[in-house]
């Protein structure tokens, strides 16, 4: 009998791609022979906009890169500018930043778990995940009035202090969350079908993972104990006690487990942050700038200048975002607008490994492997 290779197009609007991505698959029956990824359906020209806006005007655009976890994006950008201009950040601001980022990490992983399970066909987990996410979003709303795109972390500090009643609510959330994670594990981890779908699927060795430039949980799932929070400590992470979550198998299940463990670790970090947060009310400092500072200085803290110009220079600054290494390469020519903003987004680089991982697997495996890489298309296409 004559057989023919099947060319299958998944996407750009396909229910399993987390956004607009397109897989061009060359199939032999159900088996994938070759996988090509076509992207750019959400390419919004963020880097060009970076050159057109002033430094502070660009912060909202960083929110919309990885829209599930916007705080780390804000922070990575602010950190790059702070390194470039040599700005010192008040301690309390750093505490608040870490608090928001770790909370965001939990949310990110909740969304990851939900969408992974939904792609595998179990719709309940995403409902449960979003139930808890909603509670965390209420905390964010208290903080800055936004649910997803915060624009809260600014170069030199954060926009505002913690509101009254934030910490008790946070504690409530933390206590609740701990139980919930156990619930999720009970629902998912002991499910035979889930294990069948995840174990030994999309395996990538440590060597290859490094060579492909994987970072974050995807890399740690392959047994590389690597976390920028430990290797190149920034903010207050050196003072905090946490461990790097590693799994050695390198398959989809390992990547999933890393994220579950990370949620627990983030809870641990959050508890420490809440316990040791300094009382000082100063959350922002602004000692830089060529333009006159506008606005009234408030009694509580200093204020942000609307326009400022860091000294000419180049900087590459990176942080451990929930999805991996998020870096900003900023070139300043001494004016009020960046000369070049290059975003090293974790999703884009992690996605590189997918064509390698899925050859010889089946379509359902592609979905499982793709789900555990956890990309956000805003981050891929920028």
């Amino acid at each position, binding site marked *: 009998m004559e057989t023919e290779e*099947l060319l*299958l*197009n998944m996407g750009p609007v*396909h*229910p*399993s791609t987390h956004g607009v991505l397109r897989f061009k698959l060359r199939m032999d029956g*159900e088996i994938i022979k070759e996988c090509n990824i076509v992207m750019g359906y959400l390419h919004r020209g963020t880097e060009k906009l970076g050159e057109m806006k002033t430094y502070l005007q660009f912060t909202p655009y960083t929110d919309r890169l990885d829209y599930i976890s916007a705080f780390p994006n804000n922070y990575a950008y602010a950190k790059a500018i702070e390194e470039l201009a040599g700005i010192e950040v008040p301690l309390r601001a750093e505490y608040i930043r870490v608090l928001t980022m770790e909370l965001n990490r939990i949310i990110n992983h909740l969304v990851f778990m939900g969408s992974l*399970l*939904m*792609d*595998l*066909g*179990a*719709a*309940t987990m995403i*409902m*449960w995940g979003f*139930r808890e996410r909603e509670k965390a979003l209420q905390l964010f709303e208290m903080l800055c009035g936004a649910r997803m795109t915060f624009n809260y972390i600014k170069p030199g500090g954060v926009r505002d202090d913690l509101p009254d009643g934030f910490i008790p609510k946070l504690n409530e959330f933390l206590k609740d969350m701990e139980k919930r994670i156990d619930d999720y594990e009970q*629902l998912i981890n002991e*499910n035979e*079908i*889930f294990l*069948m*779908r995840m174990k030994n699927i999309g395996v990538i060795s440590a060597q290859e993972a490094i060579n492909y430039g994987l970072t974050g949980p995807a890399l740690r799932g392959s047994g590389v104990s690597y976390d920028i929070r430990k290797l190149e400590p920034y903010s207050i992470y050196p003072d905090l006690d946490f461990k790097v979550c590693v799994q050695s198998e390198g398959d989809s299940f390992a990547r999933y487990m890393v994220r579950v463990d990370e949620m627990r670790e983030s809870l641990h970090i959050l508890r420490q942050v809440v316990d040791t947060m300094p009382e000082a009310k100063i959350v922002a400092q602004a000692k830089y700038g060529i333009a006159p500072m506008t606005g009234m200085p408030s009694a509580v803290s200093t204020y942000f200048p609307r326009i400022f110009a860091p000294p000419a220079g180049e900087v590459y600054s990176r942080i451990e975002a929930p999805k991996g290494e998020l870096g900003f390469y900023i070139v300043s020519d001494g004016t009020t607008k960046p000369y070049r903003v290059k975003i090293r987004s974790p999703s884009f680089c992690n996605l590189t490994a997918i064509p390698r991982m899925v050859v010889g697997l*089946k*379509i*359902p*495996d592609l*979905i499982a492997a793709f789900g555990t890489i956890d990309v956000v298309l805003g981050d891929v296409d920028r």
Partner: protein
Amino acid sequence: MIENAYQLIVYVLTLLGVYEWIYGIFQSFGIDYVLQIIIVFVEIVILFAFVLVTVMFLTWMERKVVAMVQSRYGPMVTGPRGLLQPVMDGVKLIGKEDIIPAKADRWIFTLAPFIVFIPALLVFIPLPFGKSLIISDLRVGLLYIIAISAMSPVALLLAGWASNNKYSLMGAMRAVAQDISYTIPLALTAIAVVMFTGSLSTVDIVNAQGGTWFGIIPKWFIFIQPLGFILFLIASIAEMGRIPFDFQESESELVAGFFTEYSGMKFAMFFLAEYAHLFAVSGIIVTLFLGGWEGPALPFIPVQLTSLVIFLIKTYAVIFFAMWLRDTVPRVRIDQLLNLGWKIMVPLAVLNLLLTGFIVVAGVI
């Protein structure tokens, strides 16, 4: 003795005192067979109406059960507790544009929904809804059911192929592979039940489950055939194509599987057939293993009514289980499913058959 719905209708008419009169009219024209045809027609209309209403109710129930598991409300706005939702969906789907893709095979594309839908209704003919509430007690009822259910993969293949869409084709291929490999354990476990009753008639199967052991435990086949029951349950869920075995239309992989290209009423027919199938299969499970309509009889209430209620309670329990399962487990992979079917289910079914044979020959029960 009333044996089927035909006789029941005649009996009811006689009780009302009109049967003789109507019969007389027809006889005076010498066409009393027309009356028979009319009664048969009426009972079939009643059955199909009942099934369709149930199916609509099932779509509502499915959405409510899903919502319950996921700590939501589900449909609330349309009608009390959203009860009118399926009606609204139906009316809307009738009013939708009916698209036939340009490169599709028009005739087969149009035919396929009917080939799916009609067998889904025909399955109900030998299904006893209650004592004497059966359209026709075919002496080969079980064989008929299995044969009719085996029609559906053909229709799915037609639908998938005629759509001229890669997703549809793959969905159809999967559906066929799945149906074929699970019909075998399904039939084998059904045969084990038949070995006890010695009859393929569904009525005989239910009757064989009447009574109790020691006055407490009902003589249902689930207690004699626990392995058979589990195999039959898994196989029938697989054949229905529900999660965890719903690759024919697995959303995240194949968009909507074999009915990706269908819209409007044709899509609704697939949708209805799916739920009719769910209802039918649950009814068959109840008939084969859970004692059918057998249960306590109440005084002063016609046994037909109590038995119908008992049958429906049991069937809805099975349906609820299927819905519950759908919300808690992920989907298996197609090759894993086939492996499970051929390497585990079929050998186990054969083993079950062997054991049953020994028990029947030894005459233990």
